[in-house]
């Protein structure tokens, strides 16, 4: 057993150290609360840090760095993320690996910068025009803050895609006593670039639907990267079958490979009730489950970490239960709607709040 080494830390430090050890070497920053700790730690740890003049530039610079072989990282909150949206669509279409950390705060609009929230999942679910899926991962505790960013960076590289790490103010800014012995050793991303002497076809998919990658500016093969509808060669097309096939592939690449990034925690008992949660509310859900079980009642728990694409397993698991309680810190139950539609399903209820954390009591009361 590893020796205990308890320190005081915030989880932002775990996230940034994890990404640095994963081989992410470029951070592009534009300050915004509550993502500032991530930016600060990046300046202490990343070999390349650029202070962008705005969030559109942030994503454009990241795309330039990504196209030349780096895995760039940024961290922001909704107001900044909103500005990144068009450029994230671009990076998605271009198939450029990168990591964007979205630290949620209370909206709408500028809202309250220093209050937590979980209000941006619905946006992420529809952020790629056309309804394509872009991988989104959530952090449910300090250990996730270490392990998930490492996985996210690897997924970005392996599947040639931007990924979003969705988190929130309390998860990134609170100080915790943490036993460093809980941290697994991380392995860095291993980039594999196209090696053949045959001309490089930048959007020709392999079996796993992912095209091989080659950095822009390399001496061996010409590389074409484009954000417009294109064929496998990267040539702009209006709507040829090949080009539309490529556009369809972008979504299939993410959805069909989802088993490679199915991250969740399932704690089942023989019960007809299950609690579902994610991000900062996950800890309240864990505590609520403890409280309920202490009273002799059985209840199951699903903590989701892969948020998008929505995993088939989630539906399979949840279909076994009569009562499903979904706890998330937003007004209307965004994850609930993603799972069960706007009109919901009998037996599915939400525990929601804005401007305050959802407490274990809130969740336990709904389960009764």
């Amino acid at each position, binding site marked *: 057993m590893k020796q205990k080494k308890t320190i005081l830390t915030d989880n932002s430090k775990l996230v940034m150290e994890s990404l640095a050890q994963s081989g992410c070497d470029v951070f592009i920053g534009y300050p915004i609360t509550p993502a500032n700790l991530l930016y600060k730690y990046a300046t202490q740890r990343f070999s390349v840090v650029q202070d962008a003049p705005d969030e559109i530039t942030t994503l454009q610079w990241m795309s330039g760095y990504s196209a030349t072989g780096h895995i760039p990282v940024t961290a922001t909150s909704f107001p900044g993320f909103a500005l990144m949206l068009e450029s994230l669509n671009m990076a998605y279409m271009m198939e450029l690996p990168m990591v964007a950390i979205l630290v949620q705060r209370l909206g709408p609009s500028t809202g309250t910068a220093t209050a937590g929230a979980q209000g941006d999942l619905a946006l992420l679910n529809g952020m790629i025009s056309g309804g394509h899926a872009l991988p989104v991962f959530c952090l449910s505790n300090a250990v996730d803050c270490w392990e998930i960013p490492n996985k996210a960076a690897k997924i970005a590289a392996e599947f040639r895609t931007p990924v979003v790490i969705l988190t929130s103010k309390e998860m990134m800014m609170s100080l915790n006593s943490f036993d460093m012995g809980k941290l697994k050793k991380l392995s860095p991303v291993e980039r594999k670039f196209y090696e053949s002497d045959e001309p490089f076809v930048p959007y020709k998919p392999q079996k796993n639907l992912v095209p091989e990658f080659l950095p822009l500016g390399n001496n061996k*093969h010409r590389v074409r990267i*484009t*954000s417009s509808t294109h064929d496998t060669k990267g040539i702009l097309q209006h709507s040829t079958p090949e080009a539309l096939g490529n556009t369809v592939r972008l979504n299939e690449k993410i959805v069909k490979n989802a088993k490679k990034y199915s991250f969740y925690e399932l704690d089942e008992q023989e019960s007809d009730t299950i609690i579902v949660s994610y991000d900062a509310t996950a800890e309240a859900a864990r505590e609520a489950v403890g409280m309920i079980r202490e009273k002799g009642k059985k209840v199951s728990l699903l903590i989701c970490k892969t948020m998008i694409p929505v995993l088939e397993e989630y539906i399979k698991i949840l279909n076994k239960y009569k009562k499903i309680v979904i706890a998330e810190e937003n007004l209307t139950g965004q994850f609930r709607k993603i799972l069960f539609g706007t009109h919901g399903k009998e037996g599915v209820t939400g525990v929601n709040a804005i401007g305050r954390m959802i407490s274990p009591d809130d969740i336990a009361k709904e389960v009764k």
Partner: protein
Amino acid sequence: MENKYLSTEVSIFCKGCGHQLIAVNTEKALNKLGLSPKDVILVTDIGCHGILDKLSSTHTFHGLHGRSAALAAGTSMGLENPKKKVIVFIGDGGSTIGLQHLVDAAVKNVNMTVIVHNNMLYGMTGGQTSGLTPEGFKTETNPAGKQYQNYDISSMLSNAGGSHVRRLVGMGDFSEELYQAFKVQGFSSVEVMEICTSYGVKFNTGKKVTDFIESAGMEIKLFPEKIRAPYKQNERDIMSSLFENIEAINVKYKNKLKKPLKIIVSGSAGEGAQLAAELFAEAAVGSGLKITKKGSYPVTVGVGFSTAELIISPKDILYTGIVTPDIFVITSNDGLNHAKAKLSKMKKGLLLIDATLNPVAVDPGVEVIQYKFRELATPRSAMFLALDILLKYVPSFPAEAFEEAIANSKIGAKFNMEVLKRAEVPKK
């Protein structure tokens, strides 16, 4: 012989469009430069100029409207290779929406060349007015002529510090001028003046490109060159791990806690409430406890309330929020005002509050201790005294642990520990 960089034999642009001439001259200029096509990265965006990348045998990077300068800057910084030539093709519309990116690249002197295809309007979308459209120039959206002057993009880029900035009229052979720009290590730009043959000519019959250049007072010239080193990321002094200087907290003291204790401390910004709470947390860990500390303050961090929610517990803490605290510590009026809602929900527990404050509407079940924290310890140390008194009044872990954490902290040398040691503990 086939063109080496850009296939320009057949024009893909409207008949007579100046963009074709730019393509032809770019091919010539790149031949003069003599680089391999694989040393050239052509970055284009949305606008008629951007349809040309399919004819290029160089690397091509085709992005969003007006963002090519930023995309190219990221590419150039990512490559950081003086042997590679990053070239941006952008229009006057793109230069309008992407103005910041152009200016920023010039300020940084990023190693890239921007060719502004200034045909005085948005051509691809039907001839609307752009920021670079000159005053009086008629467009689809301003049939009576543009009401005010244009951005002088070249002056702006020159003033921003671009190494080599030129404006020229897009006629004849200007490959030498493009070659001079391509040769530069650093930011260079060439604004090529044209009139869109589809819309510009139609709306401004009988006018020549030079008429508008003249009336707008735009000079055709090479702006004063600035000899500056191209942008290069400085070597950064970075840590090998963010945890490299963080020592594990040794458990030196014993605690008496059987269950979690939830404490909210509420004071004023700039009076050390966050630091006091952090050192309290450190001392708790040094006494074998688990902790969470959640700070809350307005966005203007130097004014108003400053609150910290502390949970100290003998076992792991999951939920880090506090619905109702066991103990409230309030040392200032800002702190009291912010605490009121949560304070009113307390039905039991302890309120430690500065003697100058009036704890109205506190449930009779809550034990209230008023104490001269501010007077005895000064406002800047009031929260430290309050937490020290708390540990002596409600023994959860030793006050010595907290005092040691203060002494070993960044404020330790200046901190008046005597105030804590001398302060009288309230009687039960």
